[in-house]
């Protein structure tokens, strides 16, 4: 055991791997080569079509103990991972690790296979019940939660070697060229899959929409794809690109958005060349609306918007408010439709987006970013992984990547959810270190990190409700009371890996 720089107890090893405790967001230097894979030569004019999923598993040579991956661009509409694990089990293969880009609620179907020993490790974060069961000690499956940038880094550096990547290919030809723009399971950008396509030892394109050669525009090329498998369906289109892209009507949410807009206004970044990222939540969209109005009013020509893209951002692009969109993932049909036709709507790999170990990722070019939180503490540390009960319920997404990259990261959250204080003495789990968080915005006021005294002064000048973060905490505690700390067992069931591969926190089993 060793304490990391944020005072969290980090074990020496986890699931047989040696761990590096987190120190700070910047100083850890990589000592690795790009991960490689065997070069191969396809038999002259050989076919890549292997039939269905089972044939693909066999053709790819999947064996006990190997690691597989899928991408999560189909989000909660994805059925590929569930179907795949069913086939792996049917073939009697055991002890498989999953290193997908993310796992969603729909993948609760995997639980029996984890119990059975088909799946024995998760090299990725999860949303939903699997994490809860692991937290309760009811599922034994070591889990390493990574950010989008951190996962790209882990694959590129060979830290997580993927033996076979099974990549959902919404529009694919028989020679393995595919894109995400068309077909019944169209999901738009394949930003996450790009990394697997380049670094997995074997790549299988799995499609429910085989089109005559060539599948253009080519998103992932034939040159990296070993096999093409056809399935009846990759998922439920209704859930693939179905983000709620409605602006919140909740007055508290609107107030938070208004304050966040004040912060953006005060930052002075809203001028020509402005770059911006926001999520899909109702509050984030309300902030985006304020930003759009500011840009219109001041006739600002922004540089780019990035991250997961919604129709809202597409409208801003088409209005000429931004020069380009960098899209790692499409959140709705409008975004899918746009990326398929507009050259200024750029597909972006997860590595380009957020990998800290390259010659600069897109998040480093961001001016302002809006981020969410399940908890925030008085040191500005943010938790997005665990909830009030201590259960691991959410994946990190790009949270800590964007916070580290953006010049100004703004965390928006209601100060109270239900009866629970969101601003508190210490977060249950640290996802994102306070050092990379600029401002916390709640409906009760705006707390500015001491790193940004000029911004704080400007906000005070604008008569924004600036408060010390401890004052916010006190106000919230006065209403909710101080919550009893959650009790944990010593057993570590999961790691929260910082983007650079060091361990910023761990998830321990919740005491029942």
């Amino acid at each position, binding site marked *: 055991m060793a304490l990391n720089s944020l005072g969290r107890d980090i074990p020496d090893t986890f699931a047989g791997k040696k761990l590096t405790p987190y120190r700070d967001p910047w100083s850890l230097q990589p000592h690795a080569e790009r991960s490689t894979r065997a070069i191969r030569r396809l038999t002259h004019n050989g076919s890549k079509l292997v039939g269905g999923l089972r044939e693909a598993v066999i053709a790819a040579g999947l064996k006990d103990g190997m690691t597989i991956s899928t991408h999560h661009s189909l989000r909660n509409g994805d059925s590929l991972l569930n179907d795949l694990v069913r086939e792996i089990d049917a073939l009697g293969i055991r002890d498989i690790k999953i290193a997908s880009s993310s796992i969603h609620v729909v993948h609760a179907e995997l639980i029996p296979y984890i119990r059975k020993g088909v799946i024995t490790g998760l090299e990725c974060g999860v949303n939903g019940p699997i994490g809860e069961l692991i937290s309760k000690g009811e599922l034994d499956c070591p889990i390493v939660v990574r950010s989008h940038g951190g996962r790209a880094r882990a694959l590129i550096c060979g830290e997580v070697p993927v033996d076979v990547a099974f990549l959902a290919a919404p529009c694919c030809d028989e020679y393995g060229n595919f894109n995400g723009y068309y077909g019944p399971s169209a999901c738009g950008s394949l930003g996450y899959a790009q990394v697997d396509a380049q670094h997995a030892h074997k790549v299988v394109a799995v499609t429910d929409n085989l089109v005559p050669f060539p599948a253009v525009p080519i998103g992932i090329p034939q040159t990296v794809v070993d096999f093409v498998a056809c399935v009846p369906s990759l998922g439920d289109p209704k859930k693939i690109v179905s983000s709620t892209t409605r602006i919140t*009507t909740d*007055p*508290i949410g609107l*107030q938070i958005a208004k304050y966040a807009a004040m912060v953006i206004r005060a930052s002075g970044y809203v001028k020509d060349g402005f770059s911006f990222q926001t999520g899909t939540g109702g509050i984030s969209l309300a902030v985006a609306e304020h930003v759009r109005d500011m840009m219109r009013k001041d006739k600002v020509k922004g540089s780019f918007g990035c991250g997961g893209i919604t129709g809202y951002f597409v409208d801003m692009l088409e209005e000429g408010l931004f020069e380009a969109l960098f899209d790692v993932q499409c959140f709705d049909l409008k975004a899918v439709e746009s990326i398929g036709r507009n050259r200024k709507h750029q597909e972006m790999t997860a590595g380009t987006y957020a990998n800290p170990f390259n010659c600069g990722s897109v998040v480093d070019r961001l001016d302002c970013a809006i981020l969410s939180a399940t908890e925030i503490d008085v040191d500005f540390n943010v938790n997005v992984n665990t909830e009030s009960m201590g259960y691991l319920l959410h994946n990190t997404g790009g949270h800590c990547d964007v916070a580290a990259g953006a010049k100004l990261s703004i965390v928006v959250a209601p100060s109270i959810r239900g009866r629970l204080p969101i601003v508190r003495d210490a977060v249950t789990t640290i996802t994102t270190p306070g050092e990379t968080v600029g401002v916390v915005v709640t409906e009760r006021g705006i707390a500015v990190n001491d790193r940004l005294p000029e911004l704080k002064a400007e906000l005070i000048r604008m008569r924004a409700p600036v408060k010390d973060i401890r004052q916010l905490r006190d106000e919230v505690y006065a*209403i909710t009371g101080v919550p009893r700390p959650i009790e944990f067992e010593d057993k570590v069931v999961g790691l929260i890996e910082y983007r650079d591969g060091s361990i910023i926190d761990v998830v321990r089993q919740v005491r029942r």
Partner: protein
Amino acid sequence: MTGYQLRRSLLYVPGNMPSMLQNIPLFECDAVLIDLEDAVPLNEKDAARVLVRCFLDQYKVRNKEILVRINGLDTKWALDDLKTVLPGMPDGIRLPKADSPEIVERLDTLLTEFEEELGLDIGHFRILPSIETALGVINATSTAKASTRLIGLAFGAEDYTATMEIERTKSGEELFNARMRVLWAAKAAGIQAIDTIFADVNDMDSLRRETELIKRLGFTGKCMVNPRQCDVIHDVFAPKAEEVEHALQIIDAIKRAREMGTGVISLKGKMIDAPIVIRAARVLRTAQAHGLVDIEISEEDIYGTE
């Protein structure tokens, strides 16, 4: 609440909804009207009263004016409403169906009794009467002078149109006469005039149009049913940059005038005297509330020294 109290936006908050009450400190309106009357069903009158009292007891550090809308004085609940909420020290009472000066006087004398009982200065609790029936509109002139506790007259169009047996429209021609009568009564009595709610929370454009209209007519504030309406209302009531600039020049000019020993001065060929100074001061105080200027206007600036 001495001198100049900005009341651009008065938000109704149902007295039976803890979640809404809890958020009162957060809303950016100038005043809240905690409702024990129409928003509260008959079987919750008692519970709501107690809830509102508990809220007032714990809301010690106030950042806005708190008025409680009690049930009409002709109902069996009004006295209990007052008995329960007044010790929680609201700033005042919004009195529904203030159809005559006598009704306001009746509340006035009740408030006096409570102030005596609570050991407060007589006149501590203020009154904002609702002019919301045909009779109320007719009597508005006398009602406006019925008590020194009055901070203004509030026009209530929903009840008014009901008593008139007419429909309320978004353009509001049917309200024009009643609004004017309330305005005259309030202005004549030297108190504020507060306009009615706008019910459609999703129609911000019509809300804006209506607020612009009532501001032009002379209303100084508007009631609202949803905090989302606050921004539009404040935006309409915000003084325009040129208004602020002009007001600053006026205050500047009158200060110069006083230094020269006169109460009148010419600015760009226009005479500046007391009424113009008072209006300029109001513009600047409103501007300050909007964060547009950083200037404290003292009574001395407006009226000079004796």
